[in-house]
């Protein structure tokens, strides 16, 4: 076989291998991408996103935005997901003693609030943090404050 013709034959064979495998791999990548998209879509109906504020009362504030939680998660679950929480059970109700090591005292402690989207202001909690089930888009705030104080997180 003439050298140039031989080179051409092997070049064509190499190109065939490259084009077929590259096309198949692109197809594989596309399928994987589609599968992940489907999984994500299915997961989105099972998760909720909430924003969580932890206000330490000394000017330090932590925002944990778009925290992903399973459907049915409570304020307590959400807080435990983003911070170290020490708590005491009072029957079936949770009392939060400390968040990230900041301990409550007889005068000051952790009180949680929820943002009311309709009135655009914080509303105080009327139940234990493990009893309030969150919905997608909720914003909750933990305030380290005097037990008698009614000032919301700012």
């Amino acid at each position, binding site marked *: *076989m003439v050298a140039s013709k*031989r080179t051409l034959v*092997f070049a064509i*064979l190499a190109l065939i291998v490259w084009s077929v495998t590259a096309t198949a791999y692109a197809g*594989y990548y596309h*399928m994987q991408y589609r599968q992940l998209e489907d999984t994500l879509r299915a997961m989105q109906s099972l998760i909720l996103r909430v924003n969580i504020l932890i206000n330490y009362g000394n000017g330090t504030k932590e925002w944990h935005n778009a925290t992903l939680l399973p459907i049915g998660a409570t304020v307590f679950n959400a807080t435990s997901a983003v911070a170290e929480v020490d708590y005491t059970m009072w029957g079936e109700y949770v009392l939060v003693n400390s968040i990230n090591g900041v301990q409550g005292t007889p005068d000051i402690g952790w009180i949680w609030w929820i943002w009311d989207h309709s009135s655009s202001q914080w509303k105080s909690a009327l139940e234990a943090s493990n009893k309030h089930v969150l919905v997608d888009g909720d914003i909750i705030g933990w305030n380290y404050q005097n037990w008698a104080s009614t000032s919301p997180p700012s």
Partner: protein
Amino acid sequence: MRFQTRQLALFCALAAATVGIQIAPRPPNIEATSLTTFFAGVLFGGVAGGLFGTLVMFVNGFLSPWGFAGLILPFQIVGMSIIGVAGGIFRRYGVADSATRTALELAVLGSFLTLIYDIITNTGVALISNVPIVLALIYGVVFSLVHIVSNTLLFGFAFAPLMKAFKALGELKTIGGK
């Protein structure tokens, strides 16, 4: 195709060695059978190379560490036979003048023949599992890539030493007049 006793013994020894390597524990899709089948084609001609591939894959179908091949076996046999026949065709055209060029050509041939083998076996999987052939090829592409890359390297690096060894044995005098 007419074997002398010595050639027949060599054919059987090569087949036995190939089966032995093939059924030994190894990572999936990394194998030396394609190379030895191709080499059998170079040594004994295309028809014998095809038979070599048939024999090796038939035995492998029952003894493979990955289990009984089942309905995929005929497709494996056809794929490997084509590699053996290709060895016989390559023998006619001979090796290139330089060692580097020979290695490159063999690497390309290894990748191409492995691709053909994988297309045939994946088509078999598609027909047996009743899935579209294109889908079977796409889903098998990761295994195929491993197979193609390993055989590209094996053909590129191992063919020349194999050829040299058999030339030293006096079994391979010329390939395509060289």
